[in-house]
């Protein structure tokens, strides 16, 4: 996990010093320092941010009262008749100011508007008279805010009404409001802290990507080895059986978001897989899993093997098991794995899963949605490799295609995700926001291409990045990033061939790759050591004379996609 301390600028029109303190004191990463804007100066502060040139790295949190920033809504609260169209116009105007501030900062978080539960508006008629009702207007205002802001690249509306729902009547304390202009209680602030920090972790690329689950009393009730699949508790007209089905549905739902599922269980594999295949109410089938280890061995060892097989890190993994003994064992042996405490009552499993908050993501790309099928294809690829007579023969059978494409609005999310998450095959491990990366690519004497890889087993998606920068007679490889999913299949050589071709186009004679070592990018060094480049200087510089031939691998079919904006490099 990232131990870096991040700075947050908190703008609000009520007292939020307790929220700031709770953010700073919360022990979970990321650690935050909070600076509070002057009290009740929301619009001037947002306007100042919008015109600031020094807030590009700023994380901003804007928390407002609906009646403080939307004057027509304040009139509604006072019982005046207001045209709802006028209210929404003011929401639009407020959102424009927020959006302008968002352009100038790294990310901006804004909770939706809430009201204390004792506000009943017009009672029975509150939702029936759209021009007069308080709650109806508030719902429309929040809907409008989401519509206006959710499409902005780095602005994240937060679901404050959910926090109020969770904390209940104690979300607000009117006495605190009158005594200290504190609108919301610490209990509600704590919910906000959890969601905000989960969001920041997601933006930092710290999303957990793999859930490993036990089977007996975790995915279903009972011991399948004792009762057979016909005897386990799953579905049916049974409260606990329904709870297990719902838990499996919740897991399947996070799989749709790109989170991988695997099983680690102490069981007889054939009996367990028979249950997963044959039970009529089983939601998760073997095809929903990227792997499993079902045996009588140590679960920590099984987790290690599976993580290695999937080429993921332990820090990407969550382990769910009903047994406190197994949880304790895995926590002790593999501290990087998230092992949540787990309720004893299966009816609380879905809630426990939702409360983890570790699956929040900054965006969901096509690659995320396809991640499961990519791993299944990878398994098939491994099988075919083990049956091939030589690595070269195997590569020839893959029918590999690589599409080379420029930076586009349609691929920037994935490009930046790959840039910021890739550790192993990463020449310099440069980390940049989408804006900063786009700006860099638009600079003079720079070249960028993304590589989309597929073969007969499936589409691996956008899995490699190459960027170059030219200076006089030399060009340097700035980013050389390859997802571990496509290592050693000719993608690296295709990228180098592309770089050499670009150098020739520029009339540049020397191509240089300068390797910056990290704790994790030794595989990148191993590639450059055998790349055909000449090792120079301190041993971390690799140089190629572009007059020499560098052919792309013969087993790869290369296609080029033109820019969506002709004229772009």
């Amino acid at each position, binding site marked *: 996990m990232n131990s870096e301390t991040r700075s947050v600028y908190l703008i609000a029109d009520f007292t939020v010093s307790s929220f700031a303190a*709770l953010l700073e*004191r919360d022990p979970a990463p990321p650690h935050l320092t909070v600076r509070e804007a002057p009290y009740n100066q929301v619009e001037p502060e947002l306007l100042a941010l919008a015109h600031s040139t020094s807030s590009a790295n700023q994380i901003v949190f804007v928390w407002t009262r609906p009646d403080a920033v939307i004057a027509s809504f304040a009139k509604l609260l006072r019982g005046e008749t207001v045209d709802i169209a006028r209210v929404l116009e003011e929401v639009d105007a407020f959102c424009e100011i927020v959006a302008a501030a968002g352009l100038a900062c790294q990310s901006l978080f804004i909770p939706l508007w809430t009201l204390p539960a004792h506000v009943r508006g017009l009672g029975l008629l509150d939702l029936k008279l759209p021009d007069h009702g308080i709650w109806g207007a508030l719902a429309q205002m929040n809907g409008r805010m989401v519509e206006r802001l959710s499409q902005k690249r780095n602005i994240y509306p937060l679901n404050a009404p959910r926090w109020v729902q969770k904390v209940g009547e*104690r979300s607000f304390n009117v006495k*605190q409001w009158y*005594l200290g202009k504190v609108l919301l209680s*610490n209990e509600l602030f704590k919910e906000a802290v959890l969601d905000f920090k989960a969001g920041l972790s997601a933006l930092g690329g710290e999303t957990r990507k793999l859930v490993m689950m036990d089977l007996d009393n975790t995915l279903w009730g009972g011991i399948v080895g004792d009762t057979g699949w016909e005897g386990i508790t799953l579905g049916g007209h049974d409260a606990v059986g329904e709870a297990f089905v719902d838990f499996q549905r919740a897991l399947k739902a996070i799989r749709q978001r790109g989170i991988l599922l695997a099983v680690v269980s102490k069981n007889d594999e054939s009996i367990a897989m028979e249950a997963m295949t044959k039970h009529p109410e089983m939601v998760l089938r073997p095809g929903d899993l990227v792997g499993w280890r079902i045996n009588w061995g140590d679960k920590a060892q099984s987790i290690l093997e599976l993580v290695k097989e999937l080429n993921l890190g332990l820090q990407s993994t969550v382990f769910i098991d009903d047994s406190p003994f197994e949880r304790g064992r895995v926590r002790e042996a593999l501290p990087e794995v998230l092992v949540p405490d787990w309720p004893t009552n299966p009816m609380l499993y879905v809630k426990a899963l939702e409360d983890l908050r570790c699956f929040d993501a900054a965006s969901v790309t096509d690659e995320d949605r396809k991640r499961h099928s990519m791993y299944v294809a990878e398994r098939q690829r491994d099988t075919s490799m083990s049956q091939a007579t030589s690595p070269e023969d195997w590569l020839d059978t893959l029918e590999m295609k690589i599409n080379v494409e420029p930076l586009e609005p349609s691929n920037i999310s994935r490009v930046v995700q790959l840039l910021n998450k890739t550790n192993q095959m990463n020449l310099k491990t440069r980390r940049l926001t989408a804006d900063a990366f786009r700006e860099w690519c638009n600079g003079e004497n720079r070249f960028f291409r993304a590589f989309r890889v597929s073969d007969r087993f499936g589409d691996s998606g956008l899995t490699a990045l190459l960027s170059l920068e030219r200076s006089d007679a030399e060009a340097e490889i700035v980013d050389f990033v390859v997802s571990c999913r496509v290592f050693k299949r000719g993608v690296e050589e295709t990228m180098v061939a592309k770089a050499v071709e670009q150098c020739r186009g520029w009339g540049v004679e020397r191509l240089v790759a300068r390797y910056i070592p990290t704790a994790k990018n030794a595989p990148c060094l191993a590639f450059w050591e055998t790349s055909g480049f000449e090792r120079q200087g301190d041993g971390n510089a690799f140089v190629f004379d572009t007059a020499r031939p560098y052919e792309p691998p013969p087993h790869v079919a290369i296609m080029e996609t033109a820019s969506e904006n002709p004229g772009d490099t």
Partner: protein
Amino acid sequence: MVKNIVLSAITALNEELPEGERIDPSGTTRLIGPHGTLTSLQVVNLVIHVEEGIAEHIGTELDLTVNEELFDKDGPLQTVDTLIAYLTKAVAGHHE
């Protein structure tokens, strides 16, 4: 019971405070006045926590925040012990 409620309110308030500034829950700890460390907002938060705790666990609705003497520098918020004594009396008085 009142003592536990006060200690629980101090624990809740300490969640906001940096490690070196947390309130020692022992009886002689000064809350406001000379050598007291709480800001006015923290005092309000402490009193609100206490009010909510008493309402929840004893079932007595006390309006502490409208009682100006509570906030006097020589008043019940001088120390943890004086606060507990004041609240115990207030709860008993409410039940008479």
